[in-house]
């Protein structure tokens, strides 16, 4: 039983890590209808910039501010150079453009900072919590809990931002209908700039968390692929969906690997998440919390 709980908790906490990346996708999709494939590259870019600055002797807080500024600039530049000329193009074109952006970011970050992997420390050690492993024989990493707390705060902040602030309301209006939003005087360009900047911030947080877990290296870009099933399971438009989807995917993936894996030869983690997501989609094609798809002819 203790083992089951440990696996479940480990899965849920891993799921939170996926959610952190998925959040970035959701933000941009919600506000501009763009499926931003470059989110993984943004996570990598942010983490690499931060860790390289720290290694060059910059104070950690200052490095954080600088990285954030870089990410905001990157977001604004993306809006200006990539998205604005592509307004009114079909979604697949925008999607392809973000794949192009992925290549640019991957090349750029490694060109500037080099391609060797870096370790990252945030002051929270990635070790099991002592009293829990002594009392109940359950190993849960301290850092995982820290990451979950960060994710929780992030979601709360984003929820308040989207629901209560003026900009948040404008964002939701843009997401609902570009033209109607323009008609009531919401500056579309500015809004998109803000969304990409916020997505850059989320990418930075996700990059830091994943950087501590796996080290800051090129493989970080593949984290985005892990976040995709979370995304389609939860629904592209829903912040809550990203969290719930992450929890479901994380838990079922770990449980399947432990209890189902031995029967088929292991290594099923690479595709199991996609199959779960696929199963959910067959019942609800818009994901758990996605907006209902209404088809008109």
């Amino acid at each position: 039983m203790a083992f089951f709980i440990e696996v479940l908790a480990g899965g849920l906490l891993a799921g939170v890590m996926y959610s952190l990346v998925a959040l970035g996708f959701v933000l941009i999709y919600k506000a501009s209808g763009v499926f931003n494939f470059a989110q993984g590259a943004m996570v990598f870019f942010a983490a690499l910039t931060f860790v390289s600055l720290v290694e060059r002797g910059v104070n950690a807080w200052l490095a954080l501010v600088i990285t954030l500024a870089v990410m905001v600039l990157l977001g604004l530049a993306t809006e200006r150079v990539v998205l604005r000329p592509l307004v009114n193009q079909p979604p697949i074109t925008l999607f392809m453009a973000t794949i192009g952006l992925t290549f640019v970011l991957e090349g750029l970050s490694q060109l500037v900072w080099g391609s060797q992997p870096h370790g990252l420390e945030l002051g929270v050690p990635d070790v099991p919590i002592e009293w829990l492993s002594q009392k109940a024989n359950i190993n849960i990493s301290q850092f995982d809990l820290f990451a979950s707390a960060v994710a929780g705060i992030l979601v709360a902040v984003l929820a308040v931002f989207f629901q209560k602030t003026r900009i948040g309301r404008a964002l939701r209006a843009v997401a609902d209908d570009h033209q109607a939003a323009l008609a009531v005087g919401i500056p579309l360009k500015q809004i998109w700039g803000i969304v990409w900047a916020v997505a850059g911030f989320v990418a930075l947080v996700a990059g830091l968390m994943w950087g501590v877990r796996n080290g800051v290296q090129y493989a970080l870009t593949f984290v985005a692929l892990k976040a995709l099933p979370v995304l389609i399971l939860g629904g592209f438009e829903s912040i809550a969906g990203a969290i719930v989807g992450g929890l479901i995917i994380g838990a079922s993936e770990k449980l399947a690997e432990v209890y189902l894996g031995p029967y088929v030869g292991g290594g099923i983690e690479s595709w199991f998440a996609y199959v779960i997501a696929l199963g959910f989609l067959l019942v609800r094609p818009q994901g758990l919390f996605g907006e209902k798809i209404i088809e008109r002819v």
Partner: protein
Amino acid sequence: MLYREAGQFKTNYAADQQLFPIRQDRIGVAALLVIAFVVVPLTANQYWLGAILTPFLIFALAALGLNILTGYAGQLSLGTAAFMAVGAFMAYNAELRIPGMPILGSFIIGGLSAAAVGIVFGLPSLRIKGFYLAVATLACQFFVLWALQRFGWFSNHSSSGVITAQKIEILGYVLDSPQAKYLVTLAVVAVLALAAKNLVRSETGRAFMAVRDMDVAAGVIGIPLMKTKLLAFAISSFYCGVAGALYAFCYLGTVEPDGFNLDLSFRVLFMIIIGGVGSILGSFLGAAFITLFPIFLSLISQGISHATGVEISHAILSNLELIIFGALIIFFLIVEPHGLARLWQIGKEKLRLWPFPH
């Protein structure tokens, strides 16, 4: 002056419905085929045939397959490499396990196996659409590679799943020179491209396009959605499967499941985006662009280091290549979202009207 259909009158239906209705097009295509089949193998050197032209043709075939699915039937797929892997491994197994199997038969078996896998993973498309479907096809990508690695039967129990393709033997002749492999590839690609060209103007092709433009509307006017979508997946995967078999037999020789990773899927996707979504010609143009571009880039960097005497390190070069590649994709999408094929069309139109602007 040269390219104008004035004076070419059609007096029967067959002439009106032929594949290339304009005489200049027919001459052009025939000339192209003669060059590709006769002149190129005689003049090109081993490197060009083996390392550039053969992979170009194979990728063009894969792009053609994806274009049928994405460009004509409108179902976005990120599982192209998986279908290619199925084609490669099943062709290998057919050749290995069925005594006296002709090589083209193995290619067809590879293609048909890929088509079967395509149908299975195409089933969700009946319910899921757009990006949700694209992510769902990733399930295919990861699952197929996992299965090929996990079950030893596929690779005849070789360690790490590497297979070495058998020798190509047609009518008793062993074809192992780059010229012969190029010709085999070219023949297969030419036949399949012709078939695709015919397919997209048939009733099936029109049904694909109706589904692409709006599947609910297509259903309302009586196009069977399930049959059409699954057929699109089957045909597309067949093309990709044959391309995969050629990739293993005519190009690389030894392949492993990891060679068919997501990057390859994206490469093929880029080919159709840059070449032109929903265009047969575009598949070829896109494949040519993506295959030639890295070579072109390395030539330039060599030229620069010769001219300035500064040696550009390999790491910097590969990163620069990534950046330029990504920037070019964005540039292309902004300047010409319909791809190179559209530029070709515009050029043709200009040529017809020359010397007048309208």
